[in-house]
């Protein structure tokens, strides 16, 4: 039709227009006729986790036939950059994945997030530990609900550490850790793998040290500009400690060109004794190894990050707190579904499938592996769970922290300069 009429463009145009209008109208009426739809936006996750959501959704829809729940997934980076636009558009999801912290605060300040204080205080939040709810609480209002927590610790390959005469369970302090690194180097074993190219795996060192030294309160004080802000003593000290570790040549060669995925696989292949990483790396490191088996469970240990002398946060933990927030204009069904998704029963089911370490009290009992139970223990003993600094302090400051962690690991900045750059980024955020 286009071709035969091409000399008659002005005549055929109104007909085209009518067609388009009709098509748009037809599409509109289809969506309007459907039941209430709740859309959930989440970061791309494992197929096991997607199956878990499918089961939860099926169970919920069976009870609520008029509600239709749809999960959508976006890759990590795409999610972070597209979320601000999506929240402002009519394509806004009803429920979306969040890390809490300053990122959530930006969204709350812009008025996109529904206040969940009322339903949460009406019995919902009682099933979670206080620190988990705290990650989504801003100025005494609750804007999200926790899904799972992650902890940064040390994955150790005891087959290698034993060769160097290192007792992993005896590593309690930073000195112990440094001594272990020296012993491994002398034995010709690479002490640590790290995915330096991605930035955030190196931030696990700086962030863990800052949490140990300053504690959650110290970090909060720095946000308010107290004690010299992020240029204060604990932040400079963290840089110094990281540099003293770097002087021992602890990482694999070319670590700044290694991605997290690659580092995870290298640890699985037994190329290094330690990997400072989140607890989630258990399965991925096996899957990314050449054999697909990774380090056998008999040789694999997960221990907490070492304590530091005189630190304020030695009884605290460092890791992620991931959950969901509800957008402002979402239907009440969205809140209802979220409450269902995150209830103790479903959390226990998640624990049983081993996809993550859920936060609801008592759900840890269902955990299958000793590693997951260890994580649950660490979280249980922890007095405060500091959320990853590259998330808790917002995107911009977070990216700066990842940068300076890499710079410190390569020895191209002094600890003072590094701390000053974090403070500058915080001022200009």
């Amino acid at each position: 039709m286009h071709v035969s009429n091409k000399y008659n463009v002005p005549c055929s145009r109104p007909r085209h227009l009518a067609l388009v209008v009709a098509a748009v109208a037809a599409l509109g009426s289809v969506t309007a006729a459907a039941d209430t739809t709740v859309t959930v936006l989440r970061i791309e996750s494992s197929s096991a986790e997607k199956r878990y959501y499918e089961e939860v959704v099926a169970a919920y829809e069976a009870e609520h036939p008029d509600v239709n729940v749809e999960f959508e997934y976006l890759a990590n980076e795409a999610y972070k950059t597209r979320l601000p636009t999506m929240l402002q558009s009519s394509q806004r999801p009803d429920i979306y994945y969040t890390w809490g912290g300053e990122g959530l605060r930006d969204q709350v300040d812009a008025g996109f997030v529904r206040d969940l204080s009322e339903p949460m205080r009406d019995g919902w939040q009682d099933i979670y530990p206080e620190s988990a709810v705290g990650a989504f609480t801003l100025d005494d209002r609750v804007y999200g609900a926790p899904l799972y927590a992650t902890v940064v610790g040390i994955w150790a390959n005891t087959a290698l550490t034993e060769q160097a005469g290192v007792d992993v369970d005896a590593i309690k302090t930073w000195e112990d850790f440094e001594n272990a690194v020296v012993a491994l180097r002398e034995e010709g074993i690479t002490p640590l793998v790290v995915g330096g190219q991605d930035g955030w795996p190196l931030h696990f060192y700086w962030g863990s040290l800052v949490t140990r030294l300053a504690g959650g309160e110290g970090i909060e004080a720095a946000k308010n500009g107290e004690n010299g802000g992020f240029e204060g003593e604990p932040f400079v000290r963290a840089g110094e400690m990281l540099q003293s570790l770097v002087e021992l040549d602890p990482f694999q060669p070319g670590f700044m060109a290694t991605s997290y995925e690659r580092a995870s696989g290298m640890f699985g292949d037994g190329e290094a004794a330690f990997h400072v990483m989140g607890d989630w790396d258990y399965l991925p490191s096996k899957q990314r190894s050449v054999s697909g088996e990774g380090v056998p469970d008999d040789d694999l240990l997960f221990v907490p990050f070492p304590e530091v002398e005189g630190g304020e946060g030695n009884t605290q933990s460092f890791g992620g707190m991931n959950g969901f927030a509800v957008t402002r204009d979402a239907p009440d069904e969205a809140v209802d579904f979220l409450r269902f998704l995150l209830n103790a029963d479903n959390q226990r089911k998640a624990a049983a499938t081993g996809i993550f370490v859920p936060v609801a009290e008592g759900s840890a009992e269902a955990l299958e592996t000793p590693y997951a139970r260890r994580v649950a223990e660490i979280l249980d003993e922890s007095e405060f769970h500091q959320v990853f600094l590259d998330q808790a302090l917002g995107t911009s400051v977070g990216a700066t922290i990842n940068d300076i962690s890499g710079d410190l690991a390569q020895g191209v900045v002094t600890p003072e300069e590094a701390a000053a750059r974090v403070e500058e980024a915080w001022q200009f955020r």
Partner: protein
Amino acid sequence: MTTLDRTAVPRRGNADRVKKGLVSGKFTALLILLPPALILFSLFVILPLADAVYYSGFSWNGYGAPSDFVGAQNYQRLLDHSVFHTALWNTAKLILVSLLIQMPLALGLALLVYRKTPTNTLFRLVFFLPYILAEVAAGLIWSFVFDGDYGITSSLLHAMGQESVYVLADHQWAFPAIMTVIVWKYFGFHMMIYIAALQGVPKDLVEAAKLEGAKPRQVALFVQIPLIKHAIVVSGFFAIIGSLQIFDIIIPMTNGGPSNSTHTIVTYLYSFGLSRLNIGFGSAAAVVLFVLAIGIAFFYQRTTGKGSKA
């Protein structure tokens, strides 16, 4: 003949011309054909540009409407930022490498393979292949080549009894590696421009020079290259503008690292503006990039334009 025609047709006023236009349908054609282009251009070029200039005055993270007006602070921060200086210098290096290494290389190869023979066609195809590859794919391929554990470069070094070099993790070598890839990727494009131009050089001129006893080098230098000057000017323009826009090769190779040492202006504005949700700051970087591009393009057209007239 033309003078005769001019005198034969009486001169008409503007009103007459409009009238004639209306009758002949030129005016209708204008009314129908101009708006689509004009609207698209305004919608996708002028409007975003104006928006970027507007946003660059705000400290804005992309949520809600921008409200925190900070004046020229974003520009101030940009000009004070050491990584931005590195990015500017890296972009300048790319322009220099494109003009001083890539274009002569392309010209030399074009002179070797411009004649239409089967072997030349094969060579042309081989030289042109990198240009056909998608940028991201090329970046990924080269990140494997430069890999210190499994890459070809490290295998070569091992064969020579040397230690592995992690090129892309090295402050000194990461950017030269990127420049190498960019020369490799785009020289084929410039070569094709020169080949097309060389094939248009009249054969009799080349033959006349040969009869006069000119050696091949002299033929190239004094006959062929002066005659394809217009093509060289155009390819130089593409090289400069292309260098200002380099982005998708760097992201998979180094992502701007190590320690932000391999950013260009575009990767800088992406990582410090978009990924960090500093939309105002990123817009300021974009405006600077735009002014630079326009400035250079204008300057280049002026200077080379004058040159060809003289």
